[in-house]
């Protein structure tokens, strides 16, 4: 059992490394010398091959973990986010074979890697299933939603590439600022990963006691407490006293520690962003832009739309229809206005609006790209923030 589980973890780790290597090969394909076209297409082929091997490694992780735990590994935040990373890679592979666009790999794989690394920061132990999750619909529902979101994520990737290429970086504008905000947001995830890993290596731990309703519970902080739990008392010695308390309106399970983690992500992410800016001496968007000389805007726009067109039905099926069927089986009502449900509906509304706006002239190109980014922001909000801030049936992990 332990062997199987450690093999499974190794496979996930290998997949991550392979994605990283593949990214470098995709990076090679956008080099700006026209002479070695052949070499470039070779690099693209190697890149996609390594990506596929990585995907198979991750699939092996998934299957062996399933065997070890006895249930599909999509039951907590770590497992679910990891799976989401995998569906992004799958969606990328499929889209790659339709459009043969190598620059996509250079951006899609890092997004998937950030998400997988982010996932690994959460508890990775195999957790038992509570009765409400014991259903075949757990994996039917979760895998379908995740696949839909993975495909939709590709529209975010092409949208970002479009924006980086298209936005005039010669002077500062609202558009350059918003593009930097997107870059900065991605770096916040890296900030989170760096902070968590650093303090994990130091074995940092501080225990707090705080009231929930009329009970007192304990929580362990693995990052120094900037924000302590609401009305919390620090029990450990020789660790940092919290600077302030988590506001009381944050209601997810263990909100204090999660909010603290968020603060650390901002802190470290901002530092990393600052360092990058100091090195580049220009906006990140401006630094990447010259690399995209050969990318074709209309093709990027086409893929953005296509990814939404393919992803939307899958998301609807998994996120609304399968979700409703399961809710009916488990609770006797297929729809209950739980925050996660509502945000799935909001996601659906958003992409429905996107598809309708595509009918009118004037919403193609850059506007579509901004919308694709907005849609992904909503998806990530639903994945992360709803569990953190809003109480509800889905506030696991």
């Amino acid at each position, binding site marked *: 059992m332990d062997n199987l589980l450690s093999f499974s973890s190794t496979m996930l780790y290998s997949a991550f490394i392979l994605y990283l290597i593949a990214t470098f090969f995709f990076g090679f394909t956008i080099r700006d010398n026209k002479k070695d076209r052949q070499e470039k297409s070779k690099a693209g082929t190697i890149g996609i091959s390594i990506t596929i091997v990585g995907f198979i490694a991750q699939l092996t992780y998934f299957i062996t973990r399933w065997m070890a735990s006895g249930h599909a590994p999509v039951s907590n935040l770590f497992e679910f986010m990891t799976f989401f990373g995998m569906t992004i890679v799958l969606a990328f592979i499929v889209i790659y074979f339709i459009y043969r666009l190598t620059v996509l790999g250079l951006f899609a794989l890092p997004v998937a890697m950030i998400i997988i690394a982010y996932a690994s920061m959460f508890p990775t*132990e195999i957790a038992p299933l509570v009765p409400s999750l014991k259903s075949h619909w757990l994996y039917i529902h979760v895998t379908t939603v995740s696949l839909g979101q993975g495909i939709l994520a590709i529209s975010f990737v092409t949208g970002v590439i479009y924006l980086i290429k298209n936005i005039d970086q010669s002077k500062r504008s609202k558009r350059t600022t918003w593009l930097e905000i997107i870059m900065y947001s991605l770096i916040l995830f890296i900030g989170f990963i760096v902070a968590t890993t650093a303090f994990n290596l130091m074995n940092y731990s501080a225990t707090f006691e705080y009231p929930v309703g009329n009970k007192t519970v304990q929580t362990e902080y693995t990052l120094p407490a900037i924000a302590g739990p609401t009305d919390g008392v620090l029990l450990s010695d020789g660790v940092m006293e919290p600077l302030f308390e988590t506001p009381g309106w944050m209601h997810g399970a263990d909100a204090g520690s999660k909010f603290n983690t968020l603060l650390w992500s901002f802190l470290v992410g901002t530092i990393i962003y600052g360092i990058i800016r100091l090195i580049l001496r220009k906006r990140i968007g401006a630094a990447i832009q010259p690399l995209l000389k050969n990318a074709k805007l209309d093709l990027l726009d086409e893929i953005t739309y296509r990814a939404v067109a393919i992803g939307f039905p899958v998301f609807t099926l998994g996120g609304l229809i399968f979700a409703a069927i399961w809710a009916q089986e488990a609770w006797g009502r297929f729809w209950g206005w739980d925050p996660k449900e509502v945000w799935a509906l909001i996601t659906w509304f*958003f992409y429905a609006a996107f598809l309708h706006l595509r009918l009118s002239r004037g919403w193609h190109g850059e506007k579509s790209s901004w919308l694709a980014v907005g849609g992904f922001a909503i998806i990530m909000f639903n994945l992360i923030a709803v569990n953190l801030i809003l109480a509800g049936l889905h506030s696991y992990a």
Partner: protein
Amino acid sequence: MKSIKCECGHVNPEGTVLCEACGKPIEGNQHIDGNDKKKLLNMRYDGTARRSQTYNKSIIDKIWSFFSSVKVGVWLIVLALIASAIGTIFPQQQYIPIDAISRDPAIYYPETYGILGQIYYQLGLHNLFSSWWYLILIALIGVSLVICSLDRFVPLYKALKIQKAKRHKTFLSRQRLYSESDEVSEKEKEQVIQNLKKQRYKVRIEDGHVLAEKGRFSRWGPYVNHIGLIIILLAALLRSTPMFYTNEYVWVREGEQIVIPGTDREYFIENKGFILDVYDENDERFKDAIQKEGRIIPSNFQTNAVVYKQSDDAVAGSETDLEKVAETEIRMNHPLEFDGYKLYQSGYQLNEFSQMTFEIQEMPEEEGAEVESFGEFTIDLINPQSEYELDNGFTVVIDEYFPDYFLDSNGPNTETQHPRNPTFIFNVYPPDTDKYETSFVGDIIGAADSIGIDTNSVELKPMGEVLGMFATNLDATGENEYQVAIKNMDFHRVSGLSVRKDSTLPIFGFGAFIFMFGVIQGMYWQHRRIWIQPTDKGIRLAAHTNKNWFGVKKDIEKVIENTNVKMVEDQQELDE
């Protein structure tokens, strides 16, 4: 109705932008689709005459035009999106947590969220999703769906049916994908046509003019999925009537047999036992996670239930002449179904009190001192009496009884009428006197919680004889001579079951199926058309698709391979 005759001879209805047959732009109507300012033709609805774009006189015309606008539709979606997001800022009333300060929204929101909570509550946002304006918003989306679809579907259907292979030359040259080839031999033309057929295009030829078309059915996808959505909205409307939807909740004690609410007293349920299984904390697989969680993790909630139906000739509600309908285990995710009803495992009480035994004692001088007993009495919590007379002349009157006791700023209160945490105010009358002493006794659950017992997953039954020692026992005056101590108690388990009958489910399912069908039809296929027009020695080639231009270009590349036909140029005007 004014109709317009095109030079090709086809008679078009008023408001037509592009001739239904040959596609020639009709003079005077080009502003409707914005073609007058663009080089390319707007092919969205093939330039058909839509009611919304044609008539704008009567009030009905205006309402029709309003709702048929995609812009209005998108705005409605965006408004619904924003409203829904607002509904998740704070929990909706039904999701106020059980351990909240108060379940009363008037108290809960301002107490928990301050002034913003107060505003949220005052605006009724705590019941946003059942508010009249949210429902109206959804209804307006429904209206928009119907009108949008009708406005476009009928003319588009007609136009695509009427369309001719022989098109006006400006129709071709103003397509996004277009090329002119000067020298193309007959043989090459034939080859192109064969290639088109190989690509599974349906090819029509009129006087040498070619129309190759595939995937037309995908054009109906949007209208099909809109029909699905309308069915879902109608189902939601039906569900709001009691005829189609029953929603009840019932608590059944172990061993108890009671009528199932919402069934016209026709069905009875017997609880043969409630089972709570938990994960073994030494389980190899899960021990790390359980340890980290630091609490007991349940693995199964189960009620062993028997459902009886009254035979038809019996008096309603009487418990004679019952026949067994079902006997099964109801578990989470495994509801029991009988005669259209479903019973869901929805809650449980491991520790509902069935009886409590009290002892009247002399008030101890100091903590733990030996005390004299003045007799015992037992309260059956399912049928409590109002007073208990002891053999030795003591009388105990129940002054107040809180079956499910809790304490808040308004003093002692009861959460429900179920004996889940019975607490009493006793008036104790010693023998031969009218004077009484008041004692406040109970809150066993509070006591168990405070010594660290998780009363939701641990059975208290084996601890019945000792738990009383930790109970609250208050003497309001401080002058009492006697105290009422809890000697013993007994518990039973209770199952909470939801009772549902939802006749709208098949309609919802059907609507969802139609929606998925339509959305896949519209999204995963595309309507591609390629036109070929003979010129003196060569041809004109044009193509249109409703999505996936990349795909149609690839088709054309394959079709013209090894011929003199020039590849189409993409004339798309980027709008920025």
